[in-house]
C-alpha cells in the first residue's frame, strides 16, 4: 500500500513488525520519544535502526522540562543531540510544561503558571536549547486541568514565548479542544489568535470525558468528530503544509481502525492543502 503523504503515527513496539512490513499501516513518518530510544542496545536497538532506515523519524520529547524552575540538564541535551543527529531526525518537539521540579522527575506534564516572568524564563531556556541543538524546536501547547497562579491568558502566554524565543509551535488540536472545553473558551477563536505561521507540526488524538465539565487528554480513544472538524478548520488557516501525527498510546484498537484514522486525517490534509495549493 502507498504511504500517507502528510500523516504519521507514534511508533509502538507492539506494531514493530507491521511497520517494517509496511502493509497494514501506511504512515508518512513515525514519531518517537528520544528518551525511550537513546542509550539502548540489544533487540530494540536493532529494530529501531531498521525503522529509522525505512521511515522519516520525528521526535517528541518527554524529559526536557522546558518550563521548570530547575537548571537545564545539559548532559541530557547532549544525548538528545547525539540521537537527533544519529537518526537524521527532522523535527524535535517538546511540551510547554514542566515534568521535573526541585530536582525530581515526575514523568508527566504539569501546567506552567501563565505569568510574564515565566515567559522570560522559558523563552531564554528555549533559546539556549536551540543554540545548543543547532536547530529550532517546536513547543507543544499541552492540555491542562487547572490554571496555576495565572496573570495572563493562555494564548498570550504561548504567543509571547513563541515570539520571544523564536521557536516553532506544535499545535495539538485535541489539546486545544480539551482546554477550550475544560476552561470554557472558544477553540476556533483561540487558534486564530495563535502565531499560525510558526506551526511546524500538528498532533491529533482522542480523549476521555471524566466529569461533566472535565476532559482528560488520554490518547486512549479514537479522535472524535468535533476534533476532526477543528483540525479541518485549522488546516485551512495554516499558511503552509505541515506533518500531522496520530497519537494513540493506550487502549490500542485493531490496526485497520488506526489506518482508518490515518486515512481520514490524510483526506482532510489533501482537501485543505494539496487542492488549495494546486489552485494557488
Amino acid at each position: 500500500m502507498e504511504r500517507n503523504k502528510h500523516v504519521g503515527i507514534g511508533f509502538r513496539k507492539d506494531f514493530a513488525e507491521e511497520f517494517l512490513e509496511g502493509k497494514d499501516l501506511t504512515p508518512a513518518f513515525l514519531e518517537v520519544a528520544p528518551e525511550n530510544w537513546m542509550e539502548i542496545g540489544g533487540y530494540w536497538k536493532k529494530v529501531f535502526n531498521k525503522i529509522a532506515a525505512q521511515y522519516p523519524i520525528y521526535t517528541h520529547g518527554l524529559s526536557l522540562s522546558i518550563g521548570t524552575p530547575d537548571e537545564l540538564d545539559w548532559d541530557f541535551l547532549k544525548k538528545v543531540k547525539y540521537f537527533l543527529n544519529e537518526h537524521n531526525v527532522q523535527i524535535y518537539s517538546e511540551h510547554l510544561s514542566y515534568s521535573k521540579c526541585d530536582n525530581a522527575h515526575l514523568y508527566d506534564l504539569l501546567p506552567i503558571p501563565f505569568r510574564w516572568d515565566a515567559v522570560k524564563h522559558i523563552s531564554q531556556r528555549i533559546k539556549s536549547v536551540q543554540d545548543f541543538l543547532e536547530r529550532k524546536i517546536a513547543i507543544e501547547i499541552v492540555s491542562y486541568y487547572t490554571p496555576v497562579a495565572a496573570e495572563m491568558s493562555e494564548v498570550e502566554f504561548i504567543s509571547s514565548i513563541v515570539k520571544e524565543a523564536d521557536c516553532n509551535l506544535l499545535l495539538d488540536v485535541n489539546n486545544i479542544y480539551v482546554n477550550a472545553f475544560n476552561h470554557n473558551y472558544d477553540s476556533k477563536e483561540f487558534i486564530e489568535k495563535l502565531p499560525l505561521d510558526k506551526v511546524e507540526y500538528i498532533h491529533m488524538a482522542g480523549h476521555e470525558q471524566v466529569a461533566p465539565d472535565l476532559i482528560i487528554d488520554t490518547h486512549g480513544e479514537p479522535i472524535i468528530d468535533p476534533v476532526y472538524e477543528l483540525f479541518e478548520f485549522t488546516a485551512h488557516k495554516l499558511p503552509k503544509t505541515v506533518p500531522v501525527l496520530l497519537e494513540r498510546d493506550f487502549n490500542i484498537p485493531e490496526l485497520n481502525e488506526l489506518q482508518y484514522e490515518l486515512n481520514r486525517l490524510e483526506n482532510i490534509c489533501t482537501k485543505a492543502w494539496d487542492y488549495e495549493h494546486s489552485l494557488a
Partner: protein
Amino acid sequence: MNTHLHNYTHTQQSRLADYCRTGDPPKIDGLTENRVHHYRRLIHGVIDDTLQSAFPLTCDLLSQEEWYGVVDAFLSNYKCQSTSIWKMPSEFYRFVEETGLEIKEKYIFLEDLLNFEWTEVEIYMMPDIAYPESKTDGGWLSEVIAVNPEYKILQLNYPVHLKNPKGITENDRGEYYVLLFREKESGKVRFMNLSVYFSWLIEKVEIENTPLIKILKEAAQVFGVNEKALFENTLPFLEELKANKFIPGFYI
C-alpha cells in the same frame, strides 16, 4: 541560576510538584481544587505502571496494599533522576535498598528480588558492547577464551532466581551467584546459577585475557583443589557456556 523567574512563580510550581509527589494539600493561587488530584493520579499511574512492568515478580509477591505502600513511599520521598523512564526502576531498587522499610522485615529477600529483576531489564536494554574478535574452535587450556561482554554476575543472599519467591524463607539464606547475559542474535536475557568458583572463573577469564591453564593454576591455590580435578570439573561448564552462546569462542 535563572535571572527571570520570580520566587513567587517558582514557589507555585514547587507546590504543585510537591503535591503530586506527596499528596499534601497544595496552597496554590488560582487552582481549580477539584481537578488538581488528576495530576497526582496520572503521575502515580505512570510510576506504578513502569514499576509493575519492571518488577512483575515483586508486584505479584506483595499484597496490593503493600505494593502501593512502597510505591507511594518512593514517589513521596525519592527524587527520581532518570530522564529515560525505563531506567527509573533502578532508582526504586536503590530506594528500597537504602530505606528502612518495614516490608523488608517481612520479605527478607526483597532487595535480592528487586536487584535480580532490575538487572534483567538493565542487561536487556543496555547499549551494545563490542564483542572480542574470536574464532569458534580452539583449545580450552591453551588459548584465551572470549566471553560475551554483555553480562553481569550478581551475588545474592537468597535464591530468588531458583525458587518461587513465595516459598523463600530464612532457611534459604546463603551465598548465591547468578550470571545474566544477553544473547547476541535474539537480544534475549538468559541467566544461570553459578558456584562461587565459576563466578570467580568467568570474571578471571574476562579480565585477565590469559589462557585457561594459567587461571586454573591460580584457582587451584585459591580453592585448594588440584588442577586436573578443576579442569575436569570446569570443562563441562565451559562447554555449556559455549552452547548457551555466552562463550562465542577463542580470541583470534
